């Protein structure tokens, strides 16, 4: 388990990435003239940091804005407001050479290995393209570098001649990793990198990612809905609910002592092997979605078993509740 080292490592490390009050609203347009009828708040004021060589796990149910957050951090979308500082520079202000240098340093690995590789490109070209774009190696050495990268992710260099459709899901995900590693990045946004793979392959990819982290001092933003895996890879964990971070803490702390009722609910829902069968906790059904969310009060109010009257009136803020332990709740556990 990685969690043990978390307390020692974080805090000392300088921040590689700092996300400040990041918001992404999608306008909902109605009618012929496309009046804006409202906004879907995919990301509503998210802040966190990632240190050098650190893995931050970002968990939450589907549709809570995790993927949007990952794509903003990789500068693939423009935010409605807020900043993402990489090496203390706002990535959304970068142009030309500086933007290219950011792209070299921050890479992304996608959820669906069947959609993340161009079906009309050969594997060799997929892995070689970033090297060519950034001119990292002279033309003669590109072939060697591609073979080296394929070996690094545990694939046979022979595969370079083929097309993505000839590979299995796990092999494709390794190609996705090789493409990201081709630029020697410092940060990799891993957007549910294993959720579409078989269990046995999941472990291989995770272990590969951990090895690569040690070898190349990588930082990960590890997005997942699988709490078990996040516990294994992350130093710190942020829990998202409807576009907001509701709890953020060191991995060990969060799993041992969750403060936010939503985090607790998530942890309780992880299947465990039990000796004694206990009745499951009664969960209120989700009535709110990102699209239909009301503005006042806590977003989690309607599902929360610990709600008090204040929760309906005022939205809580993410505040420190313990040492390096932040929660966004009026009535934490």
């Amino acid at each position, binding site marked *: 388990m990685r969690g043990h080292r978390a307390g020692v490592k974080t805090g000392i490390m300088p921040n590689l990435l700092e996300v400040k009050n990041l918001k992404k609203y999608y306008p909902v347009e109605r009618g012929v003239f496309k009046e804006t009828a409202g906004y879907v708040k995919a990301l509503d004021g998210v802040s966190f940091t990632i240190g050098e060589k650190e893995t931050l796990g970002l968990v939450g149910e589907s549709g809570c804005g995790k993927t949007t957050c990952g794509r903003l951090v990789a500068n693939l979308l423009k935010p409605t407001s807020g900043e993402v500082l990489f090496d203390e520079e706002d990535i959304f202000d970068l142009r030309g050479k500086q933007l290219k240098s950011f*792209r070299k340093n921050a890479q992304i690995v996608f959820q669906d290995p069947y959609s*993340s590789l*161009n*079906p009309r490109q050969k594997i060799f070209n997929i892995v070689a393209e970033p090297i060519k774009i*950034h001119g990292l190696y002279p033309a003669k050495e590109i072939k060697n570098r591609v073979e080296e990268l394929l070996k690094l992710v545990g694939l046979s260099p022979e595969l370079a001649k083929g097309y993505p459709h000839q590979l299995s899901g796990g092999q494709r995900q390794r190609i996705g990793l090789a493409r990201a590693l081709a630029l020697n990045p410092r940060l990799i946004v891993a957007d549910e990198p294993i959720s579409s793979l078989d269990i046995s392959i999941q472990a291989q990819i995770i272990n590969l990612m951990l090895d690569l982290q040690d070898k190349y001092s990588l930082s990960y933003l590890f997005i997942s809905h699988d709490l078990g895996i996040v516990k294994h890879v992350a130093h710190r964990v942020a829990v998202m609910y409807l576009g907001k971070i509701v709890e953020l803490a060191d991995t060990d702390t969060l799993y041992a002592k969750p403060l936010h009722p939503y985090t607790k609910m998530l942890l309780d829902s992880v299947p465990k092997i039990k000796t004694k069968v206990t009745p499951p906790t009664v969960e209120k059904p989700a009535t709110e979605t990102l699209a239909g969310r009301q503005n006042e009060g806590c977003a989690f109010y309607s599902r929360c078993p610990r709600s008090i009257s204040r929760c309906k009136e005022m939205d809580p803020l993410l505040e420190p509740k313990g040492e390096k332990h932040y929660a966004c709740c009026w009535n934490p556990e």
Partner: protein
Amino acid sequence: MWQRFSSNKLALSGMVVIAFLVIIAIFAPRVVTHDPTEQNIADYLQGPSAKHYLGTDDLGRDVFSRIVYGTRISLSVGFIAVGIAVFIGVFLGAFAGFYGGWIDSLIMRFVDIMFCFPTFFLILMIIAVLGPNIYNVMAVIGLTSWPGIARLVRGEILSVKEREFVYAAKAIGASDLRIIFRHILPNALAPVLVTATLGIADAILVESGLSFLGLGVQPPMASWGNILTTGKDYIEHAWWLTLFPGLAILITILSYNLVGEGIREVIDPKQ
């Protein structure tokens, strides 16, 4: 892909016919039995015979040789006109779909305006102004038939550009042009192939129509359309003048349509 296409017997026979026509067009001078423009008044309006396989016209010219040379006109008009249309349509559609916003609105409203004109009358008018010759016909057909392709390409681009490999290309620092031409377009062009194939058939029909009206290929140069024009004056006594160029048009259009439908079936993901 090819296996599925070739298992469709109709599409395959269409392709064989087109290949055959292309060969005839290329080797026209060797295929013909007479000079297509040579007049022989003594032999005028003769029916099909061993000397004139498909008869002669009112000036005693060999209809078989004229139809063979007409193949060159029809095929080249089809290819070049559709080539122009695909080039313009793919470019404008790709930029509209990729950039969205006001670029998209501008291009697509222009497409809408183009769709408002009855194309054939627009072509007639332009040809009447520019003067009838084969190059004007190719250019004008090409310049009026791109909007459908632009609309199609835009739609394809909109669906492909949200796929993750396009985000991946952006993340590795690929330029917009590289993303459009290397990553998006190769995955969006299959339906264009279908439209282009069907478009060749349309272009050939339009050219025949224009030549029939005297606004396309000018005599003495032979085209299927202008053989038909002569034919209509003698349709009561010289049926071969109408039947054979008409059949040539029919078979060619049918072949292109069969091939187009065949490709459509192959690339249809629902099958």
